[in-house]
């Protein structure tokens, strides 16, 4: 059975109310009828009992009269007068039959029984009930007596012959027959019983009237007093109104009473059929009510259950509209609303999902969706992820704003999608798209990438604007470059970054050149050990003073002899150290080691200026100046012996702070040099403010100095400019004699490079350059 729904509850409530009211009415009616019956029954019973007593009295009178008449029979008189015992007995018997007496006795004036039809030959014994005889000549004498389990009327009639000659006692049985007869003649209740209580014994029934209903035997057993007014009594599950009446009795006789019962059940019988019909109607009504309630409930609960099931389906993400319910009631309306709601929710969720998985600008799947697409199982093991970066987007946005940037990206996405056809295209970052080729190898990817570069190479045109996008494509191939989406995306990005710096604008992922390999992080732990365990060493590259031809300075370059990896190039761990905050420690070690070296060389008579490289992060450390100053003091060397090299980019990141730090260092007497000058975003404005002593021209300008006229102009200009600014100039990467010659020719102060010497351990440096003077 379904849970009780609202409508069922209402229906049941009404049914229950009606039934309760009906039951109450029925109960009330029953009670009223019953009370009335009890009242009427009581009155009737009382009247009946009076009638009964009167009838009994009449019986006694009738018997007495009959006996009286018989007593005047001359035959009897003469027989008594002549003391003819046999004749007396026969006359008594004869008379007894006439009056319906079962026993006739002749009692003499002396109180002795002279003749007894029950004991024909018995000797004269005193009559048992002397008191009955006493008033016999005064008036009628009759008593109800109990004898041998039977009850009799004993009527005493005197005999005159002509004076009192004796008494005739007639015993008329009050038996079942008599009672039944009385009931037939009058409206006596059906339940009439004669009861007697022999001395010392309980009451017992000796006669009862006819009729089926009978007061149960022993109904009054144990009762000492009978009610003389109607009372309610229960026996054998039946209810009676009962009443008892006593009769005139002889002294000393067992008590005799007539108990009259009025059966309430019988009296209620005519009403019972009415009540049964009533109850039947009630039950019928109840059944009908419950059935109809159930039907209603079912008709309500079924569609509700269907709706509930639909709701569960929706909860599980199934937005198919629930089965149509063609109903015109509230449920139908609910179902219709429900359908509409389901469709609306489905659309809304579709939109949310769309938004969650799609880029709002281009309408393409976003990074999450892209990852999901890449992770999707594919037929072939070989697959290619192409990442297209719009490298100029940050500049474009800064220049013309986001709105145009968005339109540009939308256009780029459209071009990409056009070429991609059915393949997956997504936007994975602000500047990057991906194209997933789950069935293409390296060759086909390359071919497609070329076409992409062509398509995106065309500038974005809007109004008067014509903007180059600067596309760069990185390609990562599964399974070689990774299998999971995250790895492939990262590797493709690395490749794309690499491509951005290349002329062709296209690069494949190369694990060897990946600066972001995860194994680099483990280097950091090793680096700390390396510092502690002396795995790090400084190599020195001489700086040749071109005017004197002597080596007056050297650049300290760090070398790491890893116990397992072997020689680790500085590029492999400097960047990581910077990113992980370990660069300060590394720098301190380098400075300390270089100062120690400078001191030993100075003490040996060779005050070689040593240059160390400072990272951009070093300049962010407010304690840098103090630490380096302290180290210089500890080693007891003049600050001027140390040159600190910084790149332009290190200064540009946070110019104000970097400049402040550099000034403090310069104030302490340290030499400041700008490294890799010419390749970065050089700004003479900064250069002018910086407390620098030296410029180091990047090796890209020096490498082809012998052949490239442009480089020569640049170098000559830089040297001129530097000198005019009062700076010394050092050329890096001097790899041939011609270059040296040219540098010397334009007045460059120092040169550094393989042509002079590669970096070498301190001992080798000392042996070669600090023994007998410099050689060039």
């Amino acid at each position, binding site marked *: 059975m379904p849970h009780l729904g609202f409508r069922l509850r209402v229906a049941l409530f009404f049914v229950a109310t009606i039934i309760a009211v009906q039951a109450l009415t029925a109960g009330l009616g029953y009670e009223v009828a019953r009370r009335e019956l009890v009242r009427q029954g009581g009155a009737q019973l009382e009247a009946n009992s009076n009638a009964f007593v009167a009838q009994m009295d009449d019986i006694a009178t009738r018997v007495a009269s009959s*006996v009286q008449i018989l007593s*005047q029979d001359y035959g009897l*008189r003469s027989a*008594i007068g002549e003391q003819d015992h046999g004749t007396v007995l026969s006359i008594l018997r004869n008379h007894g039959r006439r009056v319906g007496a079962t026993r006739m006795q002749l009692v003499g004036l002396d109180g002795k029984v002279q003749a007894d039809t029950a004991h024909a030959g018995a000797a004269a014994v005193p009559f048992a009930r002397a008191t009955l005889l006493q008033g016999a000549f*005064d008036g009628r004498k009759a008593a109800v007596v109990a004898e041998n389990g039977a009850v009799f009327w004993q009527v005493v009639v005197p005999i*005159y012959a*002509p*004076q009192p*000659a004796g008494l005739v006692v007639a015993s008329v049985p009050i038996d079942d027959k008599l009672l039944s007869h009385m009931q037939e003649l009058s409206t006596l209740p059906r339940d009439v019983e004669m009861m007697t209580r022999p001395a010392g014994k309980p009451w017992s029934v000796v006669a009862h009237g006819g009729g089926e209903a009978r007061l149960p035997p022993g109904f009054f057993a144990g009762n000492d007093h009978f009610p003389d007014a109607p009372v309610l009594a229960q026996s054998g599950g039946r209810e009676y109104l009962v009443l008892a009446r006593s009769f005139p009795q002889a002294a000393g006789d067992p008590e005799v009473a007539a108990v009259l019962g009025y059966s309430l059940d019988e009296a209620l019988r005519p009403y019972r059929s009415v009540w049964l019909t009533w109850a039947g109607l009630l039950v019928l009504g109840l059944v009908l009510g419950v059935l109809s309630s159930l039907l209603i409930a079912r008709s309500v609960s079924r569609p509700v259950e269907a709706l509930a099931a639909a709701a569960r389906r929706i909860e599980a993400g199934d937005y198919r509209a629930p089965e149509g319910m063609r109903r015109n009631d509230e449920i139908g309306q609910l179902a219709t609303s429900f359908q509409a709601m389901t469709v609306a929710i489905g659309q809304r969720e579709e939109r949310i999902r769309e938004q969650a998985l799609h880029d709002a600008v281009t309408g393409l799947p976003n990074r999450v969706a892209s990852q999901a697409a890449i992770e999707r199982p594919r037929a072939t093991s070989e697959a290619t992820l192409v990442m297209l970066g719009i490298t100029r987007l940050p500049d474009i946005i800064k220049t013309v704003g986001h709105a145009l940037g968005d339109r540009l990206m939308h256009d780029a996405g459209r071009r990409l999608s056009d070429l991609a056809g059915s393949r997956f295209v997504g936007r994975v970052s602000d500047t990057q798209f991906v194209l997933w080729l789950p069935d293409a190898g390296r060759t086909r990817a390359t071919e497609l990438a070329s076409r992409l570069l062509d398509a995106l190479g065309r500038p974005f045109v809007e109004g008067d604007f014509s903007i180059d996008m600067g596309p760069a494509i990185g390609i990562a191939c599964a399974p070689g470059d990774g299998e999971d989406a995250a790895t492939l995306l990262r590797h493709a990005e690395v490749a794309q970054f690499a491509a951005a710096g290349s002329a062709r604008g296209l690069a494949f992922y190369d694990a060897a050149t990946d600066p972001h390999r995860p194994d680099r992080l483990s280097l950091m732990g090793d680096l700390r050990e390396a510092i502690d365990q002396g795995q790090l060493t400084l190599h020195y590259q001489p700086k040749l003073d071109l005017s004197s031809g002597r080596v007056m300075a050297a650049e300290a370059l760090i070398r790491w002899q890893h116990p397992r990896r072997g020689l680790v190039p500085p590029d492999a761990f400097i960047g990581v150290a910077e990113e992980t905050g370990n660069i300060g420690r590394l720098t301190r070690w380098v400075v300390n080691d270089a100062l120690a070296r400078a001191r030993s060389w100075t003490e040996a008579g060779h005050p070689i200026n040593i240059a160390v490289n400072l990272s951009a992060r070093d300049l962010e450390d407010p304690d840098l100046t103090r630490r380096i100053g302290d180290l210089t003091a500890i080693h007891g060397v003049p600050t001027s012996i140390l040159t600190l090299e910084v790149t332009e980019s290190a200064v540009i990141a946070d110019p104000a702070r970097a400049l402040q730090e550099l000034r403090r260092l310069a104030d302490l007497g340290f030499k400041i040099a700008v490294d890799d000058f010419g390749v970065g975003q050089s700004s003479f404005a900064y250069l002018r403010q910086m407390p620098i002593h030296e410029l180091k021209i990047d090796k890209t300008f020096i490498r082809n100095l012998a052949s490239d006229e442009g480089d020569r102009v640049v170098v000559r200009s830089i040297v001129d400019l530097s000198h005019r600014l009062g700076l010394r100039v050092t050329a890096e990467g001097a790899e041939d004699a011609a270059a040296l010659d040219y540098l010397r020719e334009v007045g460059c102060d120092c040169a550094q490079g393989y042509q002079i010497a590669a970096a070498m351990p301190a001992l080798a440096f000392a042996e070669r350059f600090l023994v007998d003077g410099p050689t060039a």
Partner: protein
Amino acid sequence: MRRAYQTLAGLVLGLAANAYGGTLVVHVDDGHGHPADSAVVTLESPGGDAAAATPAPATHTIDQRDETFIPYVEVMRPGEKVVFRNSDNTRHQVYSFSELKRFEYVLRPGTSSPPLTIDGSGIIAVGCNIHDEMITYLFVTSAPARVTGKDGNARFEGLASGSYQLRVWHPQLKPGDQGARLETVIAEGSSDTPLKAHLTLLPDPRASMDREHMGY
């Protein structure tokens, strides 16, 4: 002293006493204050004195009129005769089962029974077998006896002074009831103050009585 006086008086006024004697009035009631008639007061002792004045044997007539024996009680002396006369125009069947005398006469209207001599003393109840309510009593005694009148009084006169025992009987005494016994002393010139006798009586069984409506 008183006795000596009485004796003296008897001696002196013996004749006068015989002529006038003492008077004894006995008043009988029915126990309810009503005077009882038809009661028989017998002077039982001393009875010898009265013998001298014994009259000759008489014949008593019991009339039957209006279905009633008249009188109700008749005092007789032993040896006297009684005749039952039917003055009604209906037949009467006079009978008695008494021990003293048993008889039965069928008397047609206007006829009388032959004289019936009663020997011995006793009470003879006489009834009519046709009319149950008819009853009369023959009180046969040798002692002086009087029947009370309507006033319930029985009067003895000319009694010698002395102590007397009396018996009071009535036909309506209950069976077995012997009636009242009285004792008194008669003195010269004694007053008529009645001697009272109380009897308990049954209803009058005669014509006035209808047994069938007595509640039987």
